[in-house]
């Protein structure tokens, strides 16, 4: 059953910036969906339109069957972590949550519970200005969980987290999904999301480029040939001349288009030594680059 439905959603800021351009999608109940795309893709604006913080220029979005503003006790149904949402630096972590809980008529005992969940109980009586970025991010997650909501909308939740925090976040998101919540998580770090989400919405330049389960989307994508060579730069030039799409990082190449046999033959013809040559199923990152590249070319 769809819990979020967007139809032909567009948002224009001023006359020049078209942040979201005719985007339609549905989010199914109980899934973890990643909204992926580079900075400026329109992810945050889309999430804000779902939450009625930004008014669409055109189109319509509903959450749990109505507009966010029409939900009864919305904070108990939808929890949100948004990039620009913040806490007064002079308020303690506990009081910051108490303010939200009081406004949403959530029992005060819940504040202690969510502080425990995000492992901030020991710091709860400290003022927020003394928190690290990671602690503020955990406090924001606690705020999102206050109302024990059915849907969680998280915008770049890994911002400011160290590797240990990222691992904690992944486990946290899996735990939320196992409890039957619907999670919509926006991120520009594809690797971070790939290990966590079921479905993805891939956005670029305000448009929705692809939507579906990761496995289906990557299965439909062209495989990637990976090569390591001390002459990677020379091989890259040859491949580009043949019309291949190449992504090079130092001595490693990720190639879309030709098969591994064709790459090997090209290297041999050019007298290029290869240290590694293999074909892989496309990763989420490969898929994203493929889709984004195709759109740019068209």
């Amino acid at each position: 059953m769809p819990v979020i439905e967007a139809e032909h959603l567009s948002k224009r800021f001023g006359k020049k910036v078209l942040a979201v351009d005719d985007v339609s999608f549905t989010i199914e109940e109980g899934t973890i969906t990643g909204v992926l795309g580079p900075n400026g893709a329109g992810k945050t604006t889309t999430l804000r339109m779902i939450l009625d913080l930004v008014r669409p220029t055109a189109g319509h979005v509903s959450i749990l069957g109505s507009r966010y503003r029409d939900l009864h006790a919305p904070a108990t149904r939808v929890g949100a972590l948004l990039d620009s949402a913040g806490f007064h630096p002079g308020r303690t972590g506990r009081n910051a949550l108490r303010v939200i809980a009081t406004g949403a008529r959530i029992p005060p005992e819940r504040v202690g519970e969510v502080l425990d969940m995000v492992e901030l109980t020991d710091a709860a009586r400290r003022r927020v200005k003394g928190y690290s970025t990671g602690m503020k991010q955990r406090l924001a997650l606690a705020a999102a969980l206050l109302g024990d909501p059915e849907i969680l909308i998280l915008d770049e939740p890994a911002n400011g987290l160290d590797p240990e925090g990222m691992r904690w976040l992944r486990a946290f998101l899996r735990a939320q999904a196992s409890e039957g919540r619907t999670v919509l998580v926006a991120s520009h770090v594809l690797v971070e999301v790939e290990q966590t989400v079921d479905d993805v919405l891939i956005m670029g330049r305000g448009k929705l480029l692809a939507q579906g389960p990761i496995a289906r989307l990557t299965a439909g994508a062209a495989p990637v040939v990976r090569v390591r060579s001390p002459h990677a730069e020379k091989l890259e030039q040859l491949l580009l001349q043949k019309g291949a799409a190449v992504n090079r990082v130092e001595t490693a190449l990720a190639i879309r288009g030709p098969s591994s046999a064709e790459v090997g033959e090209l290297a041999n013809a050019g007298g290029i030594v290869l240290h590694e040559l293999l074909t892989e199923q496309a990763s989420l990152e490969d898929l994203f680059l493929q889709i984004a590249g195709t759109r740019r070319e068209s």
Partner: protein
Amino acid sequence: MTGLIRAEFLKLSSTRTAFGLFIAALAVSVLPAILVMSLVPRAALSDGGAAIAASGLTIVPLLAVVFGILGMTNEYRHGTITYTYLTTPRRGIVMIVKLVCYGVAGTLVMAATALLVVLAIALIAAVRDIPLPWLTTANASDLETIRNAAMFLLTTGMMTAFGVSLGALLRAQVPTIAGVMVWALAIEGIVAIIKPRIGMYLPFAAFQQLTMGDALNVGEASGLLALTRPEAFLVAIAYIAVFSVAAVFISMRRDVT
């Protein structure tokens, strides 16, 4: 709505902004009152001269405007407005509750400050044996005294709400406070001198005429034009109504990014 009201007062009590206003109010009113009552010669303070010691209270309503501006602009500055609107997406209600809560808070701070000023004056007057007929005599003017005090409190509450609406409209904290100070302390004064018939209708002039009452209404002969209290009340209410409605309307339409 009760949850929203309680949340608003919790916001006030969980930061130092309201406490800061109270300290500032004490600094501009109680401290001068103590100094005047302690240091000015006894003879100069007799026959009602001690009332001058309480004149610092007239600055408190201006502080209340700044308090109102801070209350609203801090929401934008620290990003807490996002949580406020996520909790209560009906933004009109959010704004109305904020206007009322800050109005009440400003009034309470004014009441506490005025009480401390009167206590300080009375205490020092008793120690120095200074007669204070305006404070101790029970006569027909008592009703007038109560009315003046009530008007002072009401005006302070109204000015705090006015600050909230200005903050909601302009959002940028420092420019809003600086702009209000320049407007209230300089521009209105200049207009009042150049065009007194216009000057007396300006917002801070109306607020001042509301608190000072007949003291300012000394007639055209003196060169100082002023509205009567009922007129000033209507003008002040009109300003607050217009700015509050504009603040509610704009808050409802504005994107929170």
